[in-house]
């Protein structure tokens, strides 16, 4: 398993948002996570990525326990994420948004910044090349000089995807990648996700658009009231009575 979350619990005051949920993502797999609003999907996401403190459970990445690492530390180990509402750097150009994400830059340490300008310059060439590659993959080359804040909703999702890609992830958690995105852009995003998956990147995707999600994922987890209530192939899982109940409320 590339990503394995076990017995995760997240509480807000007295309210338990995630109650002992577990999820596995195999190397190179694309896994979906669905459930009604308030099921605890986003909280589970937060706990796995280190954005929310988990009150219990462990997260391991490729067999290594990363539960105690801060969010940025998990990203460096290869656990990428995007946000439900894209968080691009609004005042930075698209190119700079991407450049910032390149790991291990000489020009980001004070010592090299002031001590070795030539090393910084050389490293910037490396950064440019990496960003060029990713601009190609996400297809944002034509808007590379625009501010992040001036992009359309779908372009922002692509930009975030590109940014995550630059951190060299082994597995990426996507939080509602198709939310508020038009059908053409959903198609485009799906293609990018597939092409990244072909390169070996695994995905865990929270999404309400079940049709679009089913075309991507091989396995599906369903959450309700903080617990995982079903898992398996999408078609099988979605036809389970318990899942339908969770989504539609108890049908008479």
């Amino acid at each position: 398993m590339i990503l394995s979350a076990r017995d995760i619990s997240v509480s807000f005051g007295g309210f338990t948002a995630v109650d002992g949920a577990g999820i596995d993502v195999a190397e190179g797999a694309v896994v979906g996570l669905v459930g009604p609003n308030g099921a605890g999907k986003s909280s589970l996401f937060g706990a796995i990525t280190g954005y929310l403190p988990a009150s219990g459970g462990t997260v391991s990445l490729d067999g290594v326990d990363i539960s105690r690492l801060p969010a940025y530390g998990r990203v460096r180990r290869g656990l990428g994420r995007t946000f439900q509402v894209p968080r691009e750097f609004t005042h930075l150009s698209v190119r700079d948004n991407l450049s910032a994400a390149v790991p291990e830059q000489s020009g980001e340490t004070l010592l090299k910044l002031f001590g070795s300008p030539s090393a910084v310059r050389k490293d910037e060439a490396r950064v440019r090349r990496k960003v060029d590659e990713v601009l190609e993959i996400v297809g944002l080359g034509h808007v590379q000089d625009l501010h992040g804040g001036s992009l359309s909703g779908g372009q922002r999702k692509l930009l975030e995807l590109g940014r995550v890609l630059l951190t060299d992830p082994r597995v990426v958690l996507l939080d509602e990648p198709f939310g508020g995105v038009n059908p053409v852009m959903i198609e485009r995003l799906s293609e990018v996700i597939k092409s990244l998956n072909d390169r070996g990147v695994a995905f865990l995707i929270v999404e309400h658009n079940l049709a679009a999600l089913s075309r991507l994922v091989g396995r599906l987890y369903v959450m309700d009231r903080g617990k995982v209530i079903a898992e398996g192939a999408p078609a099988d899982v979605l036809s389970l009575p318990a899942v339908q109940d969770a989504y539609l409320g108890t049908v008479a």
Partner: protein
Amino acid sequence: MTSYLLAIAIQVGILMILTLSLSIQYGMTGLINFGLVAFYALGAYASGLLTVAGWPIAAGIGVAALVGSLASLPLGFIAVRLKAEYLAIVTLGFAELVRLVALNEQWLTRGTTGLGGIPRPFQDQPPIVQAALFLAVVVFLIVVFVLVSRRLTVSPYGRILASIRDNEAAVNAIGKNPSRFKIQIFAIGSAAGAVAGALQAHYIGYVSPDQFVAHVTFMAWMAMILGGTGRVSGALIGAFVIMLFFEGSRFLRDVMPWISEVEMASVRLAAVGLLLILATLYRPQGIVGDYSSR
């Protein structure tokens, strides 16, 4: 007249360095330092004490920068991870702490008596030349901090600083630790504040706790806001305009001969306050505009 202008120019220059200190901290990463005067005081005492003990002035100023940045580290580690408001409160408290230590640790600072006999550079020169050379040193240090500011902003490092200003949560998501950058920036800005204090000590030749009140901090804040937050040129122009007004308000005396000296000091502050209110009303982004128009 020349010596008066030189004296004012030196004060403008020192305020410019202080304002650059804030501009680095607040303008680059949004760190709110309401205790800038603490670092100014630490720099003044550090360089003052060392040079009185026989160290060369340049070494004193260098150590002042070091002391300023080292003193910022514990505050940075405590408060930088928290919301910006906490650092504001912590630094405000720290400024009071430094002032009280200066007041009470007589063995070190000579308390209210103050520390006198701090050497002034170029003392063998005639007064005008001495002041001109001192001004040259101040200008040189301004240039140094301007270049440092530029390097910090126009670089891969600056890319992360801009990202932090935009969205800190997303900075974590690209695998960078925002706290590391903020603590470093806080330390660099604090070093600038300490250097300003050291310069003031060597200019006046004397330091005492009553020089290190909140007023100093807020002159720099006013200068930064007036000039344009987060821009080097804004800090420089703001400091110049504030000092121009503050010194210019001296001539209010001529039109208001009936008020006392004590009242006059308050009237001058009120004049600067009025300027700031008008500036925020009519030019909220500052004279040169803030970082978003950079």
